[in-house]
Structures are given as structure tokens and as C-alpha cells.
């Protein structure tokens, strides 16, 4: 078994060798490490993509807008990922961002996951019939993990989710009420003798 350290080092060197700058190669390497750590096929897909890069041209998108269309070629997931990561503070205000045609969408995933951590919001990545939910770079939830990864994502929608509860106020109140059973009812005597601050605040 390869260690994550080996995975990171080799991914960085391979990325430099294919033509990315050292700084971008560092980002790719961190991303592949993240994918493999989460049990996603990072090395396999990076390998395939780099072999394809030698034969085929991919588009770059330097500035990301709310709605983005690629030209004839599919978008490079690495350059797009770097742009997304770098521009995430601006993109946060869009709430929903669309793209068409991203090659090897799995390679785009680590950048979204890290972006989620930077802005402290969950990010939902939907393409075709698949979705990934990124939770602050702590975990990734998806309906696709065990299937073969698509080589291209045709219609992509990225939603930046507002931080809100996943439960109703009623559900919360019910649970809170139950938790109250761990509290002690205070008598007058306890109110006077057991508290710390608060008794002489107006002196």
C-alpha cells in the first residue's frame, strides 16, 4: 500500500512534469492526497487525465462567473479548481454557479472541498445525475462513490449552502426538553448559595 506521503510527493512531481507550476503542483498533490484519504480514486484519475493531456487540449477558465460556458473543449479540472479555490470569497455571493463540460470532475472535487472549509459553508456539487456534498473539508457525502467516475461532467451546478439547521424548531425543542432532565431544580437556598457570579452585580 502506498502511503499518503508517497501519493502527495509523486502527484506533485508528476504535475510539475506535465507542465503545471510548482505552486499549482503543490495544490494538485494536496488534492490527490485528500481524495485517496477519503477513499476516492485520485491517483487513477490523475494518471488518466495526464495521459489525455498529452493528446488533447482542455480549456481554462481564469475568471469564474455565475454562469460559465466552455468553448469547444472541456474545462481542465485542475485549472478550474485553482480558479475556484482562489476566487471562492467572491463566488460565495453567487450562491449558485453553473458550468458546462468539466473533464475528469473527480479532480475538481478537492478544490471544492477546501473551498467549503475556507468560507465555512457546505457546498453542493451536482452534475448530470450525481451529487457531492462538501462539509468544511471534513468529509464528503455522495451518491456516486462506488460507481465508476464519469470522465466528463456535462451540466454542472454548484450551490453554496447557507449555514442553517437540518431539523425543525419543533424537533430541536423536543430534544432540548429531554436534555433538561439532567438539570437540578433550584430551591431558594440553592439560588443563594450555589451560584458564582450574579449575586452582587449592582454593587
Amino acid at each position, binding site marked *: 500500500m502506498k*502511503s499518503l*506521503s508517497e501519493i502527495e510527493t509523486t502527484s506533485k512531481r508528476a504535475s510539475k512534469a506535465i507542465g503545471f507550476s510548482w505552486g499549482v503542483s503543490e495544490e494538485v498533490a494536496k488534492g490527490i492526497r485528500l481524495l485517496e484519504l477519503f477513499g476516492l480514486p485520485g491517483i487513477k484519475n490523475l494518471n488518466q487525465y495526464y495521459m489525455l493531456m498529452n493528446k488533447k487540449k482542455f480549456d481554462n477558465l481564469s475568471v469564474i462567473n455565475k454562469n460559465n460556458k466552455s468553448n469547444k473543449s472541456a474545462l481542465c479540472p485542475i485549472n478550474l479548481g485553482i480558479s475556484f479555490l482562489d476566487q471562492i470569497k467572491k463566488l460565495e455571493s453567487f450562491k449558485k454557479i453553473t458550468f458546462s463540460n468539466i473533464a475528469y470532475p473527480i479532480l475538481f472535487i478537492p478544490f471544492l472541498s*477546501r473551498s467549503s472549509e475556507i468560507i465555512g459553508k457546505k457546498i453542493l456539487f451536482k452534475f448530470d445525475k450525481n451529487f457531492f456534498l462538501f462539509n468544511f473539508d471534513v468529509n464528503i457525502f455522495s451518491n456516486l462513490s462506488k460507481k465508476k467516475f464519469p470522465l466528463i461532467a456535462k451540466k454542472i451546478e454548484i450551490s453554496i449552502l447557507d449555514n442553517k439547521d437540518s431539523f425543525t424548531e419543533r424537533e430541536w425543542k423536543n430534544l432540548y426538553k429531554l436534555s433538561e432532565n439532567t438539570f437540578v431544580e433550584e430551591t431558594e437556598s440553592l439560588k443563594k448559595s450555589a451560584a458564582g457570579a450574579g449575586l452582587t452585580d449592582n454593587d
Partner: protein
Amino acid sequence: MNIKLRDPNIIMKLSRLGSFHQSKLSFLRSFLNEFKDWDYNRDLFDLNKKGYGTAVYSFKKKDRVYSLICFANKINDHERSDRVIATKWDAAFTLHDGIPKKKDIERLRNEVPKQEVGRLSYKELTLSRANKSVRIFEHVVQSLSNGVQPNLNLLDKVGYLYRTTAVYGSGKFGLADRFRIKNREEINGPFRLEMMLVYLVRQFTFDQVNHVAKNRNPKKAIKLDPHICKNLGIGNSTGLGMAPFIVNHPTLLNNWIFCRETALKKIRELKKVDKKDSNLFKNCVRNSIKNITSWNTDSEYQLQKINLLLHDVRKFLTFLEKKFDFEKYYPFNELYLWLEKETCDECIEYIVSIMLEPFDEIVQPLVKKMSSDEEKHFNIPTDRTTKDLLSIIEKKYSNILTINFKKKENQKKFWFISKNKEEPRFADRFEEQGSELEQPLAIARDIKKLHEKLLSLRKSLTINEFLIDNSDLRHVIRRAFIVEKFPYSEIQDNTIGENTIPIDMLRLKLSFFGALKFDPKSDKWLRICMFQGAPLPNELKNFDDQWVYKS
């Protein structure tokens, strides 16, 4: 009194970093302190008469066990090489997480002796190999088998029976990644498991030499005197492999230096110093003279440094004993200021290390702060501006910005990774091929390039906007934002100049390991000694913390 931390523009110069010495913060010393109450055991010692076979040593506490597995093999003299290109060694070692099962040992017997071309598993934590100092090992075996102790003069000249030629950890060759074990309290310090491996290897070398001597002459042989054992360490040959590490781990480098600088600052801020503490300091300086006079090297470069060090330490000692009064307020600040005025860099750093000796209450909390969660500082704050970046660079890299990289001598060298051994190398850009595959270790040059680019901008941009057209500078933009928060994270010097001495970078790292007696063999590799004078495993429960100055 508020003493400022020393200026990174002075401390982070290569020549200064190359003058660092071991201290109480060094990893081998903090390892001994951490593991002193663990149970040591020799679990297996299955060597043949010639000393070839398998041995297992362990440290145990509650449910946690770390086991060193040793494989000693026969090799021919012509196969023995300390260079990283070697393929056979006298012994190979791995530190296993837990108690190895028979099938683990069998698996490792096939892999560990192969070193870089073998495969380890997540159950192994560190990997190493070592070669005998042939003349010393044979002399000791011969002496012991004849019933006499070896010649101490000869032992003093070398200082060890074996020298390691590499110690690997953190995921190399399939070893466990650091993240798997980083939450274990006992290894909350850099390189602690590497130190454990080297320490246990030292004991193996004593056991092996006794075993071979006994088998050579069973009736007459005696054991190596424990006092002699104690004065033997483990040698190490170190090449350029270590140099990129300190460039590639900026926050870790910062934490090492920052802890040392913080300790010095706090000691200089002590208004009054107890008699027992000042006496301990004086004794250590006095005793340390032997460490200098027994420091052997053929290197002219190092000999000059040692002579100057000896001269200046003697001068300091005279001042300390005849002119200095520890009753004064802020005595260590006064001593430090005297050192800066009167002595060389090597002596300043040597005495700074000794200043830490009496002050456990200052040093021990810092020992726990020497690791780094590097991932936390990886993201570039792309919403900041080029104006911010320019200001950081001008403030934090002011000396580097004065280097003229258009001059050939300032960019004469380049760092690359060799194809045959995947090891770092350092070569002449204008005479050798391969500079187009240069590693990103010329930080000063690239920072200067970034600075020039920033100066040419007509208006301030966000970093995100700047990066769109300047992807080639991304690696140094990341570093600049790191150095903003971590003042000692960057070597404030040119790492590719004609006069760059790579062993300065090795020396820095080795001093934090706790190495003694740096012996440069060229400007690119050196030999050192570790654990010389350190307590033996059976003495760990109660040992003298200043053993370094009593070997």
C-alpha cells in the same frame, strides 16, 4: 525587562544556522526524557557466531509497544558504502508499531534489508540501515575476545561502532504516515520515533559486539565495559537529503527556531538567577571544553571553526569565572551581550545552547511546541492584496532583496532530484545539465522575482487576480504569507549562490536532532555522532540530564 526575539535576518543566515549546536530542546534529548519511564526489553537475540541474524528490542508502557527489528547481514568489504547509492549494509532496521508476529518478522526480513527498494507497511514507523566502522568494530571484538577492554584512544577518535546512512519515516516506502500516529502523546515532538530507532540501534551494536567476541573466544572473552559503551554513540553519514526538508517545511522550521529563540529571550529576561542554576551553567561550559577538544575532523573548514570555537569558549570561561558576577540583575542578558561583542557566531550559538541547561521550567513547555500542523497554513489568502504582499516581502525579506540575481555567482548552483536514487543533488547551473528540472528551493531568487513583478504593477490587485497571470510564482506567494506569521520559517539567504555551503543546512537540522561532533567530508556531506555519552537503556529511569557535557 522585555528582550526582543533575535532578528531572523541575522539568525536565519546560512552561516549562522550552520553554527547551531545541540541543546536541551534537541530531539534525542527530549526523546530520552519522554521514554525514561518506559519498560525497555530485548525480546529476541537470534544471531549466529559471526553476529548475523535477527534481534528485537522494545519500549513498552501500558498497552503501547514500539519494537525495533534488526537484521544483521554478512556483506563483503567492497560492498560497504555510506553513500545513498549503496544496496547492501551490515545491518538494517525498522521500528514496528506493536509486538511483531512471526509472519511480520518474515515479511520484514525480505523487505527491510532492501531499504529504498523494499516495501514497508503502515505497521512500520521508521526504517534505517547502518554500516560497521570496520576498524573499530574488529578492534573491539578482538580486544574483548582476548579478555581486555579496547584502546580508548582509538574509540575516542571515532566514537561509535556503527554509523547509520539514512533514517526514514513519515510515509516513505510505505511506512506509516505521520497522521496515523500524530495524536499519541509520547511522540508529540519532531522525529521522536527516528530518535528511538537510533537509540535502540546503539544498544544492538553493543550486544552484537559482545556476542561476536564471546563466540570468537568463549573462555576468555569479556563484555564491553558499560562506561565505555556509554561513551560510544551511533555515527551517521548525512548527505544532501536533509537540505530540502528545512525549505519544504517552513512552519516546522519556524517552530524549532522560535522555541530556541523564545527560551533564550526568557532566560535573558531573568532578573535574578539562583546559585545552583548559575553553577550548573558554569559547570556545563567548563565540562563542554572536552566536547570541543575531542571533536575530530579532517575538514579544514571545520577545523578552523573548532579552533575559533575553542579559543572563544576559553575566553568566555575566563570572563565568566574571573570577571563576571552572577549577583547582577539580568545576568544572562549581560552574558549574551558580551558574547555578541566578543566572540564568533559558532561560540555565541554554542553558549546559547548551554544557557538552556539550568532552566527546565522554561524549556520543557517549549519542547511540546516544536511540531507543526502544516496543513493549516497551506491555503493562500487570495482575498488579500498585492499591496499587502509587497509590504510583507519588503519587511520580511529585506536582506534577500539586496541580492543581485543577474550576477552569475549568485545563481551558479541549482538543486535537482537524481533519477537513480531520487535524492536531492546540488550542481553548477552553467557547467552541468539538468537545470531546467530545478527543484523549487531557490526561494531567495523567486522571492526577488516576485518582488520585481509586484513593483511593476500599476495598481493593487487581489492575490487571486494576480495569480491568474503569475501561476509560476504561486509557491513563493504561499511562503510569503507563511513568513508573515512565522518569522523564522525562511532561510534568509541565497541557497543557489557560488559560495552556498549546503552542509550549513544539514548542520542546522542535525543540531536539532542533537548530533555532536560534526565532521564535514565535503561541502555536501558530513559525519556526526548521536547519543554519545547518553544513558544506557538500563540507566534511563534515573539519569543525569547534563550527560552531553560529561561524555
